[in-house]
């Protein structure tokens, strides 16, 4: 339980005294500034996301490349199937 003080004010706050603190224009300026900051933040976030995706794509691309060199044996197998003499014999 928080401790608290109860105070008694003799004088009432006058309307004009409160009005001094009223400033709608400054509120709107703050709001627009916050909106701009928010938009900038979102843009930076999107840019970072795109950058991360691109880095990841590039990374996986380099990881996958050595696998493409692997089917050397298969190529041999393919070569064996092709009989270069078959064409020449057939033509004769």
């Amino acid at each position, binding site marked *: *339980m928080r401790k*608290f*003080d109860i*105070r*008694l*004010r003799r004088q009432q706050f006058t309307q004009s005294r409160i009005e001094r603190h009223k400033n709608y224009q400054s509120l709107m300026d703050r709001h627009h500034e916050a909106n701009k900051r928010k938009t900038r933040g979102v843009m930076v976030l999107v840019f970072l996301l795109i950058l991360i995706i691109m880095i990841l794509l590039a990374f996986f691309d380099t990881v996958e490349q050595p696998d493409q060199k692997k089917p050397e044996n298969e190529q041999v197998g393919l070569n064996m199937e092709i009989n270069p003499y078959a064409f020449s014999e057939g033509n004769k």
Partner: protein
Amino acid sequence: MEVTFDLKVIDYSKHISQEEILREFETVKHAVKDPAQFQILYDSYFNVIFNYIYRKIDDEDITADLTSQTFFKALGNLKKYRFKGVPFSAWLYKIASNEVNRHYRQTNKKLVFSFEEHEFEHLIEQNVEEDEELDIGHIIRQMQRLCESDIEVLELRFFESKSFEEIAYILEISEATAKMRTYRAIEKLRKLLKRREG
């Protein structure tokens, strides 16, 4: 001396009708699309929110900052506002209350409830019979023995003249809990005042 704080005693002049609440909600919807429209709500509620915060802070400059922060947050989160049948001011009170709590968490200062003398006089006038005498100082001393949540509901009910529906919305409790909490706070205060008399 019989002190009879009535649960129903409330200044209805501060209340707005259901039509006005709906009209106000239309303004809120317009303000979502066009923030310039928010000025209508700002002008309507600046004074009451300022007074509400001042009552809990007792410092004019900090109150001005927190009031400004309250409206700034309200404007920034206007899209999130959900109409629950209570005046828009209840939402502002809720934000203001959160801002005040944040202020006390950050500064680690002792919580203050600063009431105007005329508000107390009004409360006593309505609740104590003419031939009885009850000084404000005595009530304050006894109120000091209540817990913070009791003072909070008493403040909203008697000094802000809020309906139970609004109190429930501001404190994020059910209407039945708001009624019960107010009733218990009044009972506690009544007992404290009686005990001292005896």
